[in-house]
């Protein structure tokens, strides 16, 4: 390939396709209302899903061979880490030397963990008796990245029950009743709490929230703060945690839970990633809030998730005997960036489509109803790119279809993008693309962990035998059951608030009413290792993996470890 001639952010050859998109724009705007005619029937949906959705295409999943969910089907990348050798050797750890002896240990400094710490503190647990341990910095988390918004049924013509039905239908009716009820009812308490904390939601002059459509909802109930909703909520709750002096340990991920002789969870082993020393934390109650799995790059897809989304929570709790659910379903977001290379996989919020941008192919043709459910929309995009070849190929080999963003300006007036989609505008601008004038190229991207550690309405984690752990709680993306097989937009910010709060309150109750946990042990890790021995796992496969590895192949090939400076 010779030097590419770039014109306003795109190579010349891509410009040819953009011209075709421009040619059809006017007619497409005129026929915007008719797009709904492209909506697929139930049968057609099944057809595209079965052929083009990464979850259904063969070769991506396998049966778990060990552990509480033995026999369940999960993505290969997830099975790989669930069935891996424990990275920590229990014999290297002295459990009798306790570094932190606290009431409550919260693992994960994203949304759920911060909310849990705050509510434990509101419930009377002094800040100094709480420890929030996290892998990166406090707030380096998926929670910081959400753009679209958060759902809550506060309008008079809406109701928690209608919200419940939307969640249920979206989740293919596999959701756990008590969790969905908690989610939709507590939504209102959460919005009130946020008002009191001073979260800057978009509101009208009367103080009512400005609410928008989200995919798969029957009401407009998506509350947002420009397209920085997640950041706005996360930075406010983090600020509050700092005001209250909640102790935070950064760059110190949990690498294994500690169990007790009587089958409880009694804390965790943390590992300081900088000094490589370990810390033993004993806690009366432990809250798991480690978020999702995007950085496992399931099926090789790029992801929207933050650097630390490596499903450590699943790995640790699985070894300790917790039951997982709905891990067979992976959420791919239809619109991840496909060009430029620098931002491949990053999220293009659904709001771009809800505000009027239509997906079109290489020839400028409309080929899909823009607001199909996420899984269907993603499958149709893949079909257009890989079966029909009506896609644009980028210089690095990614394929994508256009999202005709200039339509937004035409439909809603000049300035609509900067006013509502400033984060998106800014991101493209940095790479020389003006999305108010030119379309943007998109392809599906790995977005969300629908399932996870099973909990009950008190946010207690459920053991393999169906009983809840009295001292172990979970909230946020790491837990499963509330969204069934598929999460709707705006319900996971809500999820981390609702179940983070419940986990914090439940943990506070335990801390108040019970003594120290029983004798600490890592026996479960040894037992699990015995299971791994039986199934022929390569020795190098260890977990939790903590961080993905993006180092260049050339360097890795030459990398040696000398037995000095270790």
């Amino acid at each position, binding site marked *: *390939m010779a*030097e590419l001639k770039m014109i306003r952010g795109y190579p010349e050859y891509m410009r040819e396709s953009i011209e075709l998109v421009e040619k059809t724009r006017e007619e497409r705007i005129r026929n915007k209302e008719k797009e709904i005619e492209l909506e697929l029937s139930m049968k057609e949906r099944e057809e595209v899903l079965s*052929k*083009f959705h990464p979850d259904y295409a063969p070769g991506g999943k396998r049966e778990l061979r060990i552990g509480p969910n033995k026999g369940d089907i999960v993505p290969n990348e997830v099975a790989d880490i669930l069935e891996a050798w424990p990275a920590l050797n229990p014999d290297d750890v002295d459990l009798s030397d306790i570094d932190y002896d606290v009431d409550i240990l919260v693992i994960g400094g994203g949304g759920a963990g911060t909310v849990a710490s705050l509510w434990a503190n509101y419930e009377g647990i002094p800040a100094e008796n709480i420890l929030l341990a996290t892998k*990166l*910095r406090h707030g*380096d988390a998926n929670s*910081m990245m959400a753009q679209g918004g958060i759902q809550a049924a*506060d309008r*008079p*013509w809406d109701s928690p*029950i*209608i919200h*419940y*039905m*939307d969640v249920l*239908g979206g989740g293919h*009716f596999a959701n756990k009743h008590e969790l969905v009820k908690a989610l939709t009812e507590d939504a209102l308490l959460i*919005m009130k709490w946020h*008002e*009191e*904390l*001073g*979260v*800057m939601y978009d*509101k009208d*002059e*009367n*103080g*009512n*929230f400005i609410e928008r459509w989200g995919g798969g909802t*029957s009401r407009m109930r998506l509350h947002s703060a*420009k397209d920085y909703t997640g950041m*706005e909520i996360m930075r406010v709750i983090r600020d509050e945690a700092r*005001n209250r002096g909640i102790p935070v340990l950064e*760059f110190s991920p949990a690498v294994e839970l500690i169990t007790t002789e009587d089958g409880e969870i009694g804390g965790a082993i943390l590992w300081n*990633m*900088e000094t490589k020393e370990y810390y033993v934390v004993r806690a009366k109650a432990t809250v798991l809030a480690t978020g999702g799995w995007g950085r496992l790059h399931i*099926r*090789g897809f790029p992801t929207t998730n*933050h*650097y630390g989304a490596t499903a450590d929570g699943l790995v640790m709790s699985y070894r300790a005997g917790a039951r997982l659910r709905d891990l067979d379903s992976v959420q791919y977001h239809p619109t991840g960036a496909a060009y*430029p290379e*620098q*931002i491949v996989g*990053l999220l293009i919020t659904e709001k771009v489509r809800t505000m009027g941008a239509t997906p079109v192919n290489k020839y400028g043709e409309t080929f899909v109803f823009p607001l199909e459910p996420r899984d269907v929309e993603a499958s149709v995009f893949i*079909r257009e790119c890989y079966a*029909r070849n009506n896609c644009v190929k980028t210089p*690095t*080999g*990614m*394929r994508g279809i256009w999202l005709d963003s200039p339509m937004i300006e035409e439909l809603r007036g000049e300035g609509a993008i900067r006013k509502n989609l400033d*984060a998106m505008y800014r991101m493209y601008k*940095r790479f020389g693309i003006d999305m108010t004038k030119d379309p943007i190229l998109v392809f599906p991207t790995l977005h969300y962990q629908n399932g996870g550690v099973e909990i009950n309405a008190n946010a207690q984690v459920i053991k393999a035998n169906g009983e809840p752990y009295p001292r172990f709680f979970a909230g946020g993306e790491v837990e499963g059951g509330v969204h069934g097989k598929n999460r709707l937009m705006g319900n996971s910010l809500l999820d981390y608030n609702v179940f983070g709060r419940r986990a914090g309150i439940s943990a506070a109750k335990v801390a108040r009413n019970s003594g120290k946990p029983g004798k600490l042990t890592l026996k479960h890790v040894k037992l699990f290792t015995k299971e791994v021995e039986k199934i022929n796992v390569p020795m190098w496969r260890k977990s939790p993996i903590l*961080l993905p590895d993006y*180092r*260049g*192949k050339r*360097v*890795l090939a030459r990398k040696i470890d000398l037995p000095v400076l270790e």
Partner: protein
Amino acid sequence: MAEKKKVELLEVDSARIMNEIKKAASPPEEVEHWVTIYVMGKPYKVPAGLTIMKALEYAGYRYIRGAGCRAGFCGACATIYRKKGEYRFRTALACQTTVEDGMYLAQIPFVPANKATYDIDKVKPSPNVFLEYYPEIARCISCNTCTKACPQELDVMYYIQAAIRGDVERVAKLSFDCIQCGLCTLRCPAEIQHYHLAQFARRLYGKYYLKKSPFLKERLKELEKGVFEKGFEMIKKMREENPEKVKELYRYLITKGREKEKKTVENTLKFRGGD
């Protein structure tokens, strides 16, 4: 639109497609164009067109600090650099900036900055509130260095000026897109801690200037009275006894609901002049 078959029955090998996607999304095998960057002074040859973050990884660095969201939302990757032969000192986000030949790079792993603590329920917004909690803002010499340093291109100096005047709303709005990277604070000759002050302002604005939602208040009263309990019980029972009926109900609600919502919203909000 003509009657077009929406789904052609394409004969495809789905597994093969997935492999092709995987290949397309992985880093290309062959590199055409190279640039040389200097990571803390050491030269490395890296493929052109990568972000600073990906380039450092390509060169063999594995981040522990300095990478968070990798998408321009968290401020973990604050970077300072100079280009060969240039006097200008530049700032950037490593995850959102393309490498250029001859960049001398250093990433800032941590910004020491004091945050004032306060009780949001007790503090009252007054014209002096910012000077009280962050008295150093009075030392601003209007040099505009903070604004030039901001990778979000915010009017940082203006929001500090607004803070000196006690204009909570203006600080809140001008600073809304702040990702708290700390670059302004590092560069400021007056040692002002802009982003912590801005956070304070936004919370004051959100809490004391934005009105509380009347709809939410009403709904909370209903919730307290247990208005929805019966409905939830009914659905629970229906799910246990007649799952098919639940599906029907869902379909009814989602189609009828969407239409109704459109009308309701148009009417009520027109009436109330909102949205």
